[in-house]
């Protein structure tokens, strides 16, 4: 019985959340959001893992009689990694625009919404 990878994902998620809550910098928050997302990748891949399983690629192994890891969670993870980078770029753009308007990246100093 082993639950360590699942616990690891919870730990990563909590670390990311702590970073978001305690952060004094919008760029730092973007990194923390990425860490929270990474926690989901760890969890997905951990669920899909099989003992002694190999990659689900059948170029040169037979389809039957081989333990392979779950391809579905892997495909969820791979598309999301790529998409999360694009979303991080969008968040960084928000940080850039916020700095232009308020001359600060500290969320505590950015009080009130202006048009």
């Amino acid at each position, binding site marked *: 019985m082993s639950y360590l990878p699942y616990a690891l994902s919870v730990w990563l*998620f909590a670390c990311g959340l702590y970073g978001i809550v*305690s952060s004094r910098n919008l760029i730092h928050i973007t990194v923390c959001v990425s860490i929270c997302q990474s926690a989901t990748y760890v969890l997905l891949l951990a*669920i899909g893992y099989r003992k002694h399983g190999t990659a689900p*690629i059948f170029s040169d192994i037979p389809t039957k009689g081989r333990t392979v890891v*779950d391809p579905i969670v892997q495909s969820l993870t*791979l598309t999301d990694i*790529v998409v999360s980078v694009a979303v991080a770029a969008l968040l960084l753009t928000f940080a850039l625009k916020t700095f232009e308007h308020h001359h600060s990246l500290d969320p505590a100093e950015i009080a009130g919404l202006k048009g």
Partner: protein
Amino acid sequence: MSRRVRIALFLVSVAGVSAFLLWGLAGLPSFGDYAGPYGDLISNLAKPQRHIANAVTAVVFDYRGFDTMGEELILFGAASSVVMLLRETRDEDVADIVDRVRSDATNALSLLAALAVLVVGLDVVAHGLLTPGGGFQGGVVLAAAFLIVFLGVEFFAYNRLASTSFGEPVEAFGAGGYVGLGLVSLALGLAFLENFMGLGTFGRLTSGGSVLLVNFSSGLAVGGGFLVIFNEFLQENMAARYGR
């Protein structure tokens, strides 16, 4: 709310959330023991049914192709938003900035590296159905090849190669092609994104039918999307550095 109160409140809440998460996850099968029925089904079916060796790609572009379209549209939306938010700096503003790396050896090696990375990217996209890889991963590598030109040669060359007027059509063509292939399937009376071409010989570069085209169009969409994002940030950086 003061910072200290906020963090204290957070620590209480995160302890509760973590406890519940751990409690829930403890109900899962032990690590390495989960026999996912759908994963097994697809591992057994991808080769005989679709002539696709890489079961992960089969899920991404065939069995779960519709969801991948959603993911790709998120990427498209994110890239478009970056372009819109950073639209103040235009191509013309930075068109004459050179910003050259002052080392001939670095320039030459970077050009070689960029070519090599471009070839690797094309290889990763093209073999997506056979070996690890595919349009999503390969697209990122393709975009990185252009970035190496900026890093090791000069901004001017990068901007000429990968200006917004190049990245945007590539991205649009890729994303549009993805949706278009799905509509072709519908027009032929099949399910959305269902294969409508011959499957080809298993193990060949051309096997997989129209799933291969979906793979290529997603490579274009991802590569173009990343180029557009790189471009906007680099233009912003150059404009700030040279006071445009």
